[in-house]
């Protein structure tokens, strides 16, 4: 199956990419743009059919490598 990990900066952490995008959008004439944040999307193919097991495995990967909990949080999505 396929797992999608959405890694985003914690709200308290400044996101210069996000603010640069916001400014650029405004310069390009887009109005009503509020806060913009840029994160990572990591897509992982797993040969693991059991959702629970897959979830556990991906969470282990996040702790071990994919996410730096000092500054980031993540959200998980599974797709069979």
């Amino acid at each position, binding site marked *: 199956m396929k797992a999608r990990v959405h890694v985003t900066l914690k709200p*308290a*952490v*400044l996101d*210069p*990419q996000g603010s*640069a995008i916001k400014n650029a959008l405004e310069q390009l004439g887009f109005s009503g743009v509020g806060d913009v944040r840029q994160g990572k999307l990591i897509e992982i193919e797993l040969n693991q059919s059991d959702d629970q097991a897959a979830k556990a495995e991906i969470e282990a990967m996040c702790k*071990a*490598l*994919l996410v*730096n909990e*000092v*500054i980031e949080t993540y959200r998980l999505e599974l797709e069979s």
Partner: protein
Amino acid sequence: MKSAVIVFPGSNCDRDVQVALRQSMGSEPTMVWHKDSELPKVDLIVLPGGFSYGDYLRVGAMSARSPAMRATVEAAEKGVSVIGICNGFQILTEAKLLPGALTRNRDLKFHCRDVYLRVETSQSLFTSRYEEGQCLRLPVANHDGCYVTDDEGRRRLEDQGQIAFRYCDAEGAVRPEANLNGSISNIAGIFNETKTVLGLMPHPERLSDPALGGNDGRALFDGLVEAFN
């Protein structure tokens, strides 16, 4: 002094720091491959600058999980001194040997230029040859030099005198204008609590030779050699 330089795939200042160490030590540091889980018995472990693993995913993230880094963490816990320069600093935070994290420069650009640094303390193995308050000129060359930590983390660093270097102006004044990358309280380098581990973004090895336009980095290596001999 005995020292080891860890070579990660994508390290590119390993030779530069090897040259600087040789110059101060009068002998050769041992170059250690990242796949080695055994380190030689040394006084100092050096994590060089560069783009280990291409800076992919997060700067320093993959190197921090290498066998040689696991061994480095063990050694550091036993009190062996460790210095991480630029990418080495990023690896140290990812390996949790130092608090906080290094993120993309505020202006999103790679910065390669000389900066001024205020020496915050001479009370460490690494800064013993400098005066507190001394103003150094050293180059930075990084894309992710913005040091972040939460307020509590910052307070702890300040209270325990763990800040080694701050970005300052040519007169040594630590001012917002001198903060080229957005680091919290102009932090350019920090120690661990016991001051046996130092991470810094600027490159002392790049100005340890007058022919290259400066020599302010030399005293850092000389001081270490003196301390361990």
